């Protein structure tokens, strides 16, 4: 208890110190939202990697391995799966942001597509990350605090304390502290992951003993399924309706989970970091060596180790491991966990607050809101979001879990509009908007929340969660892509906005690739598809027996699928390096980017329209609420 308090005090002092530094450099509110677009490249690389991987990987992925074994190898490839979208998008998005002086995903979507629907989707996703996705992880941390203090600090009290610390520093320092403190949090979280793996190995008696335990487990026919993927796909009606043979971990389940993970890099959170960077110089290094290399290695090796240890000894889950350690080590590891989760939660809160106030409320309902008041209101909204998260953790954990599981697959649906901006010029505005709409429907219809809501209204769908063992991210993207392709084909003659045309023209000039990169294009396609096929796709079935001897012994001393995952993590780092540098997709770029000056437009007086909108919003909300209540009373069981 005393050590946890001491380390906790150190952490709070550190956050307050950096909040002060951030606030001073912000000039209180002048550069609150984007740190003056001055985050240094290496800080941004650490923040991106830490926010993407650290918290959920050690909390959720290790628990999944501990519970289900190695049936979802995509979890161990998270570093590569998260680096690939970064290589694909970030350089181009940074260039667009710099040219049009944009600082968030909402602004990007509004500039290119002129779609308020996409802005709303981006905002909802940011709120889901801030309140639910991060809330789930903070809730897990609160339970750990309760365990570590022997119940002296209850989970709700711990959740409140953690939220107060988070709220305090985000409100004071804005994006600058999310960046500065985020870099330290990312390092702390990485050290914590290494620490957990080290102590888990000590507890089980070393790497050899760990693998001996796994081998004993795999010799049991009832447990052997935990060491392999259960086929390429299984056409079940979904969890809760029809169980898969063996377990849910098919090869395509892994692929669809990798898709969901890739959603994070298309989220408003990741783009917030990218659009706050000073220069794109370190994008390639960040994605290759930090995200795919260092953090990817931590997940593939250390998270795998922690999970494997709890697979053979269930008492060695994170809470059990912390309880078995000396208090100073337990406190240090916990602070690392806390840092990783708060990094993502802080970024989420700031992004969600900004999106709600600056990109929805201000342009629609209060155009005259000044910069200082915008920041003040955002701070209030961040507080409200933090309170909502704490209340949901305590009062509605099931709903929180359902909402949290929506964040990644919904975010993955933003791939199509982002591809339209950065690579695929034939994706039109109606196609992107309709595609995302259908993608969201696809996700909701295959997620517990959507199924539960439909059931509430009396409509029972004949499938459960993840039909055909495919994650909702894949179902949503299937609908999204199909509709985007169709609508694009029919709307090719529609014109683009002035900003969209400028973005297309500018990217065409700024990103002329070298002849060498053009010559390597077919190679790049081949190796990328081969990696996806073998590392997270259908080829995972080869991993079941790739490293097995004639009498089923493990040739590399560890489970075949784990060895397969480590091999393809190493090959994945090579792939990311090749795409980043050789294909110049994230390579360093040094050029002056003057701000785009749009044609002057007359400013329209909007006070009357804003009043009408407020009135319409209130009336619509009241009518919708009444309709929901009436429908539920009339049709639900």
């Amino acid at each position, binding site marked *: 208890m005393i050590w946890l308090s001491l*380390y906790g005090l150190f952490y709070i002092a*550190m956050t307050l110190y950096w909040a002060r*530094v951030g606030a001073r*450099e912000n000039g209180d509110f002048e550069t609150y939202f984007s740190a003056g677009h*001055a985050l*240094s490249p*290496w*800080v941004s690389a650490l923040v991106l990697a830490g926010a993407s991987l650290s918290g959920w990987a050690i909390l959720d992925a290790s628990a999944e391995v501990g519970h289900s074994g190695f049936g979802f190898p995509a979890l161990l490839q998270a570093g590569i799966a998260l680096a690939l979208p970064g290589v694909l998008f970030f350089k181009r998005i940074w260039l667009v942001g710099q040219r049009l002086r944009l600082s968030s995903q909402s602004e990007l979507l509004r500039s290119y597509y002129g779609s308020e629907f996409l802005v709303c989707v981006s905002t909802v996703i940011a709120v889901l990350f801030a309140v639910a996705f991060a809330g789930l992880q903070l809730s897990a941390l609160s339970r750990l605090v309760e365990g570590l203090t022997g119940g002296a600090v209850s989970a709700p009290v711990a959740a409140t304390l953690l939220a107060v610390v988070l709220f305090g520093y985000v409100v004071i320092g804005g994006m600058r502290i999310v960046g*500065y403190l985020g*870099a*330290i949090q990312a*390092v*702390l979280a990485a*050290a914590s992951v290494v*620490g957990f793996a080290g102590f888990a190995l000590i507890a089980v008696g070393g790497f050899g003993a760990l693998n001996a335990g796994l081998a004993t487990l795999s010799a049991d026919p009832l447990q052997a399924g935990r060491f392999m993927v259960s086929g390429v796909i299984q056409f079940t009606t979904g969890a809760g309706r029809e169980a898969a043979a063996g377990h849910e971990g098919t090869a395509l389940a892994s692929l669809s989970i990798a898709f969901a993970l890739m959603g994070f890099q298309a989220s408003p959170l990741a783009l917030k970091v990218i659009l706050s960077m000073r220069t794109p110089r370190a994008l390639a290094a960040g994605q290759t060596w930090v995200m795919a290399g260092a953090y990817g290695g931590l997940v593939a090796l250390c998270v795998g180790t922690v999970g494997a240890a709890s697979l053979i000894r269930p008492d060695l889950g994170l809470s059990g491991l912390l309880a078995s350690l*000396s208090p*100073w*080590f337990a406190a*240090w590891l916990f602070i690392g966990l806390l840092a990783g989760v708060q990094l993502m939660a802080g970024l989420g809160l700031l992004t969600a607050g900004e999106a709600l106030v600056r990109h929805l409320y201000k342009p629609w309902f209060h155009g005259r809101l000044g910069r200082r008041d915008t920041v003040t209101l955002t701070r209030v909204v961040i507080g409200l979001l933090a309170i909502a998260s704490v209340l949901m953790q305590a009062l509605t954990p099931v709903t929180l879990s359902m909402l949290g599981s929506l964040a990644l697959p919904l975010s993955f649906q933003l791939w199509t509009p982002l591809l339209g901006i950065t690579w695929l010029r034939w994706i039109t505005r109606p196609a992107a908007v309709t595609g995302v709409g259908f993608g969201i429907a696809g996700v909701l219809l295959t997620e517990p929340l959507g199924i539960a809501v439909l059931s509430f209204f009396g409509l029972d769908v004949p499938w459960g969660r993840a039909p055909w063992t495919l994650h909702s991210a894949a179902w949503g993207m299937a609908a999204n892509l199909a509709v985007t392709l169709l609508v694009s084909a029919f709307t090719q003659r529609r014109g683009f906005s002035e900003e969209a045309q400028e973005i297309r023209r500018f990217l065409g000039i700024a990103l002329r690739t070298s002849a060498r990169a053009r010559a390597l294009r077919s190679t790049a396609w081949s190796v990328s598809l081969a990696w996806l096929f073998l590392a997270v796709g259908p080829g995972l079935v080869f991993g079941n027996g790739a490293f097995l001897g004639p009498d089923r012994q493990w040739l590399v001393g560890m489970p075949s699928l784990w060895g397969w995952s480590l091999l393809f993590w190493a090959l994945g780092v090579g792939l990311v390096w090749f795409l980043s540098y050789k294909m110049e997709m994230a390579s360093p770029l040094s050029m002056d980017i003057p701000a785009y000056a749009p044609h002057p437009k007359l400013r329209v007086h909007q006070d009357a329209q804003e009043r009408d909108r407020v009135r319409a919003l209130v009336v619509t909300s009241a009518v919708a609420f009444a309709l929901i209540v009436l429908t539920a009373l009339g049709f639900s069981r």
Partner: protein
Amino acid sequence: MLSPLPIVERSILVFSTWAVLGFLGLGLLLEGLTRDSVTLSSLGVGGIVLAFVVHIVINGVFDTGFSPGETALGIGAYGLLGLVFVIGAITGETTMADFYSGLIFFGVLALGFLTYLFTRHGLRGAFSRFHVKPASLGEGA
């Protein structure tokens, strides 16, 4: 004169170093004291020394020295821990392993500090860091 941004970046690196290596070293040191294992506590001292070395490397990269705050914190913490060690030794609550661990900790840190001063400022320069010159004599006196 460094612009504010690199100073902030240096601080981020210093914080990260101590948050990881410093606390790991502290944990190992305490573990060694608890288990009466000089080896473990020496590993802890090694962690703390490593943190110092990385701190000095960071200083070198950013072409700066320890800030006054860092110096005060370091010397203050060293003095406080030394006091606790002396009181523990006098009251007889330390085992031989604790005693050796403490000697190694304080000895290595003191030696490391002197080595740092000598290598950075030279023998005469290191002495001058503590030699208070009367203001009336001026720099050239």
